[in-house]
């Protein structure tokens, strides 16, 4: 099957479906759902084979199509059918397509209007010409809520940047952390991973702790045990661990 169409030009699954309906001259009010699903999935496959980044919406639509298809295959319960007519499973999709088509067409109409700055131009008043408004000017120029929340966001993000300079970051080395863990293990045979991390708040602290544990295991000063996947990770002291001293230089690669 030849795909002469530009695949990445589809603005979404609705756009693609409309294209397929038009291309295969289907009746939008009576979409052959098996056929459109096959066409749609085939297009997705081509898009995937071309390594086009498929947005989640395309896959969601594929699932929707398959669901509609399976619902249409289900035999209708005769008794229930007499009570209330089962709605056509395609109805919502068809309505969405019709609605989307409306906006897609009117978007083209909008673009064909004489646009300011593209087709028509106005006189631009320079700030000097404009002069300063007098203080007694009764009105404020309209300003939007988006501008207000953006201004607040700007103020707050400005503070965060400064905060970095104000807080003196605790510098914790992997070596120090190893000693801390060993000390904690001197009173008890084992500790839960979560216990070791209990008082740790910063990201860098967590990383240092993690590296310290890996070092301990590498140096055979501790063992990590887990009884089941997803269960608590325990760190056990290796017997005689307290007699081992760790020199700064022994720990390579970390500071």
């Amino acid at each position, binding site marked *: 099957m030849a795909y002469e169409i530009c695949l990445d030009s589809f603005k979404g699954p609705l756009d693609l479906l409309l294209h397929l309906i038009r291309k295969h001259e289907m009746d939008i009010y009576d979409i052959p759902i098996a056929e459109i699903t096959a066409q749609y999935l085939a297009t997705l496959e081509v898009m995937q084979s071309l390594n086009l980044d498929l947005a989640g919406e395309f896959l969601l639509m594929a699932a929707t199509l398959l669901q509609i298809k399976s619902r249409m295959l289900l035999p209708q319960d005769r008794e229930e059918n007499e009570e209330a007519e089962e709605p056509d499973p395609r109805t919502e999709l068809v309505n969405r397509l019709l609605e989307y088509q409306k906006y897609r067409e*009117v978007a083209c109409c909008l673009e064909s209007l004489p646009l300011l700055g593209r087709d*028509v131009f106005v006189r631009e008043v320079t700030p000097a010409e404009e002069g300063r408004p007098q203080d007694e000017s009764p009105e404020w120029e309209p300003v*939007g809520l988006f501008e207000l929340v953006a201004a607040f966001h700007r103020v707050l993000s400005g503070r965060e940047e400064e905060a970095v300079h104000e807080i003196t970051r605790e510098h914790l080395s992997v070596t120090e952390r190893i000693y801390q863990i060993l000390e904690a293990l001197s009173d008890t045979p084992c500790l839960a991973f979560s216990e070791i991390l209990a008082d740790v708040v910063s990201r860098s602290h967590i990383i240092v702790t993690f590296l310290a544990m890996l070092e301990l295991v590498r140096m055979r000063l501790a063992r990590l045990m887990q009884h089941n996947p997803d269960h608590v990770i325990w760190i056990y002291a290796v017997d005689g661990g307290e007699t081992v001293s760790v020199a700064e230089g022994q720990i390579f690669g970390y500071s």
Partner: protein
Amino acid sequence: MVTAELKCIVESLLLVAHSPVKADTVALILGIEESRAVLCLEQLYDDYATGYRGFVVCRVAGGYQFRTRPEHAEWIRKFRRSRPFRFSRAALETLAVVAYRQPVTRAEIDYLRGVDSSGVVRTLLDRHLIRILGKKDVPGKPVIYGTSREFLALFGLADLTGLPTLKEFNELPPEMLSELEVGSQTQIASDDGFLA
């Protein structure tokens, strides 16, 4: 004040204005009735429309503004050394949905377009083409969007009633959007904020 002189002054205001000139502003400045200001502006509109001139008076965003003719666009772009810009389809579609469906939530835009629109919405907000109108009084209090004055100015529309007519294929049944609570289109015309 004689009308010729009045018209002359209003014409000078149109030249120096940095945005569309509203009839009520003219009335206030010149100390005349608003109806008289409208008459002046409309006469100028007619004068420029009938004479073969380099620019015309446009009714735009609730006011009146001198604008050049579309057929001269290329010369002016050359003079200003500006390149024509193009809207992406995503931006135009989103603008269309917001314009015709306002007040509208992000969820409704996403549903109607079938794709996530957060990036486009942000861009349109940054460009002041759409604005946050407030929040919808439904659970979750989602933010609602509408078009701005800049939207009208960009597309050269006097107000939202000037939008191109939506071709009616088939109206989306209300129950389908009930969970999204889409506002009816009639609200567009009645929203004072958009009209002059």
